[in-house]
């Protein structure tokens, strides 16, 4: 057996002390930077592929040829594309995403206004799907092949196959139109909608702060259906992945040891396997969160929820390219951010890395 030789040079000590974590961190950072760059290239290419000529759009159809050419020069459309790309990135760096042609506002202001609504919806849905998904996964890994396993398997298969917008429509029909259990489309009834001060644009927070009687209850009644429908769309994959992760961990030797020492199946699952898989489960949930942000686009359209998704789809129909690309970029950045944060969290929580 060879004893590892400790490198006692300065470089060696530095390597052990901070170089290694730094390297791990920098590798993550490189991926993040690359992804952001890739997103920028993608939206830039899409913007230049758009059949709408931005110069013509600004000067109008009846402008003289010289005015049109001048506008092209101002927008640097006559320059080679690397220069255009650089200008595009610089503009974005200053928070300038262009002006939405459908609302007439700067896209960045629009996004700031609509994004909290989506964030609220997606975060609540993630919480619900994480809690129920992990619970179902645990139940199903408790006795693989048993009745509970079969139930959770069907649930996860169905959850993965159901078109979320259709589920939304049908549940609106049943629970709103027929049973009158919940509020309809929109975030509040009309009586509240135009009287409340929606400062943060998080409907729960704003109605709570307003102290208007009934407003908060109304917000909950409107919120519950879209949140549940959105959560259902993620429930399937969370359950399936949780089960797979838990079952894989079950085959490890330390589980056999715990069983040999007489630990019960439930104890093994909750005290031995769960802590060791928490990192992977976090990744699963983070993945589902990015999926929910995307799913919100369709859900918001069905429930007339004034968030990023509905903003995007309205912009789509208006041919409003800056708004569409701005929204796409924002969702892309959320993806990058969530993925990066998960990496950090996984490192912080995994007992083997800590």
């Amino acid at each position, binding site marked *: 057996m060879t004893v590892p030789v400790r490198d006692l040079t300065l470089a060696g000590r530095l390597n052990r002390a901070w170089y290694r974590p730094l390297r791990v961190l920098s590798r993550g950072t490189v991926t993040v930077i690359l992804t952001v760059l890739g997103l920028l290239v*993608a939206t830039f290419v*899409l913007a230049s592929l758009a059949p709408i000529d931005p110069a013509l759009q600004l000067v109008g159809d009846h402008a003289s040829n010289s005015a049109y050419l001048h506008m092209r020069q101002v927008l640097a459309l006559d320059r080679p594309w690397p220069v255009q790309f650089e200008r595009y990135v610089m503009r974005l760096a200053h928070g300038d995403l262009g002006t939405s042609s459908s609302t007439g506002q700067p896209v960045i202001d629009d996004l700031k206004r609509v994004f909290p609504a989506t964030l609220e919806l997606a975060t609540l849905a993630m919480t619900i799907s994480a809690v129920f998904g992990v619970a179902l996964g645990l139940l199903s890994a408790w006795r693989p092949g048993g009745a509970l396993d079969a139930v959770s398997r069907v649930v996860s298969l169905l959850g993965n196959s159901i*078109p979320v917008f259709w589920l939304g*429509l049908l549940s609106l029909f049943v629970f709103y139109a027929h049973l009158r259990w919940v509020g309809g489309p929109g975030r509040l009834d009309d009586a509240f909608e135009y009287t409340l001060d929606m400062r943060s644009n998080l409907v729960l927070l704003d109605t709570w702060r307003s102290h208007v009687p009934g407003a908060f209850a109304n917000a909950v009644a409107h919120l519950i259906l879209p949140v549940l429908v959105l959560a259902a769309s993620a429930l399937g994959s969370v359950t399936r992945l949780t089960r797979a992760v838990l079952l894989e961990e079950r085959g490890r030797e330390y589980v056999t040891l715990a069983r040999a020492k007489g630990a019960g199946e439930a104890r093994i699952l909750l005290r031995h396997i769960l802590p060791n898989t928490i990192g992977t489960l976090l990744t699963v949930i983070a993945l589902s969160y990015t999926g929910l942000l995307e799913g919100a686009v369709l859900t918001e359209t069905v429930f007339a929820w004034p968030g990023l998704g509905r903003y995007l789809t309205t912009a789509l129909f208006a041919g409003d390219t800056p708004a569409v690309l701005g929204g796409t970029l924002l969702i892309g950045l959320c993806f990058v951010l969530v993925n990066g944060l998960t990496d950090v969290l996984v490192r912080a929580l995994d007992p083997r890395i800590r």
Partner: protein
Amino acid sequence: MSYFPDLTVAPRRYAYARRWLRSPGASCGALILLLTLAITLAAPWVAPYDPLLQDIGQRLQAPSGVHWLGTDGLGRDILSRLIYGARPTLGLVGLVVVLTVPIGLTVGILAGYYGGWIERGLMAFTDMVMAFPRLVLALAFSAVMGPGLINGALALVLTGWPAYARLSRAETLKMRRSDYLAAAQMQGIIGVRLLFGHVLPACLPSMQIRLALDLASIVLAAAGLGFLGLGVRPPTAEWGTMIAEGSKVIFDQWWVAASPGAAVLIISFAFNLLADGLRDLSDPHHA
């Protein structure tokens, strides 16, 4: 002539079919899909009405003996539109598969076989695309390039290939130093022929599960694009578009939106069943 009794083992008949039958999920899924395919191909003979025939006098009829699934806002027979509507969906699914898998395979095999900077570059690119928001980019792409079947498929392909690249790279890495490849190389098989004649076939089995899973989400994404008005142009029947038309009358005539959504659910469920069953077959420990 021989002293020994015949010891050769007769190959089991229908070995392939038997293998499938061991997983009820996989065979159910495959059956549903085959049935759908058959109905789709035979649409002109199966569908009771012309899917484009409008009859305003008969608009928004409830399901009955005449119109089994009722009629839509223009008096068109929903069952016929449902049957014809499988065509764009399956067409898009086929198109996506034909384009996605070869791209992913090529990238993955090149990266896995050559290693070094080629691998690092290709995999960094793969990771980058993998972190893109798939549906939203597809939306933006269709919005900019104009709605339609081909553009929808292209949009899904652009972000769909990285999973296959990763899988095929992993498979290639496993066999890079294998005797099997060394033997092939000693026979003078190199370059493209080695990669695509000998490495590629070994990558295919692990890909079918992923493919079946992916197809389920592609069906959903296609319906989503159709629902948002980015699918096939009307009046062609397409499930997502039909749900969007039904959503206008959801509170009074729920069946207009219900049946196309159920069709999407069934097809997507069949692909998921197939994937689930295939996984069990390939990996019995996990069942």
